[in-house]
């Protein structure tokens, strides 16, 4: 499991980019949780989540100061009705085509093709540039998990951005 040589080392670059601040305390987990997948993909109900800062116009846009709120996006939403706000990545691509960070149209197509069993009715978005790892752990993550589980899903597909 070796990455391509050319991968960007984001941790040192973050240190350099924010060199006037005290070093960021990255999350370092020693092991990964594991839930076996019990059904095949074409029988599974899949929910989509993205930390890209995509929201539905009419919803409250995300702010970029530790916003731990979640937007619920109905799966039938049109990508032309999306807005985006995030400070950590170049948004010109996502503004033109949200599917590069929030693949809702791809997921709908995979549902139509029968590649996945079903796409959950609601997708979830948030603004992933949250400085406080504690607030992610204590506020955002439990909310996200609770809502996704209430949707009776078999697989949660996350797209960080």
């Amino acid at each position, binding site marked *: *499991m070796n990455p391509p040589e050319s991968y*960007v080392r984001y*941790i040192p670059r973050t240190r350099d*980019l924010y060199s006037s601040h005290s070093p960021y305390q990255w999350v370092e987990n020693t092991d990964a949780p594991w839930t076996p997948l019990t059904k095949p993909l074409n029988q599974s109900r899949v929910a989509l989540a993205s930390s890209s800062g995509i929201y539905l116009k009419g919803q409250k846009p995300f702010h970029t100061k530790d916003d731990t709120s979640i937007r619920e996006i109905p799966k039938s939403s049109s990508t032309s009705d999306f807005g985006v706000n995030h400070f950590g990545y170049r*948004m010109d*691509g*996502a503004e033109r085509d949200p599917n590069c*960070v929030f693949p809702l149209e791809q997921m709908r197509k995979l549902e139509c093709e029968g590649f996945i069993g079903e796409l959950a009715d609601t997708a979830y978005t948030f603004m992933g540039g949250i400085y406080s790892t504690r607030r992610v752990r204590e506020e955002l993550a439990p909310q996200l998990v609770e809502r996704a589980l209430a949707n009776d899903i078999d697989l949660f*597909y996350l797209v960080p951005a």
Partner: protein
Amino acid sequence: MTMSSAWDITRNVKPPRAAFVNFPLGNQTGRPGNREEQMAIVRDALTAAYSMAEPGAVTILPYEWDEAGYGWQGGEYRPGYLRPYVRTEATPTV
């Protein structure tokens, strides 16, 4: 299952299952407008989720950002990186 374009951060966090695409942040499920690639990446990632057996492992997906030889990595996450990607200003991959 999570996408990743930041190898070092993902290795630190250790999500249960991850699929790595070596693209600039903001393109984790494919380049804007490239529907064929976007579909392939999502399909590959979901397929990988069902073949992975080691908690915290990362599947590397075989996509290249720029076959023409222009690098993007040099300027990524460095001052000015939020400017739109301009191919002609990119420096060659080292």
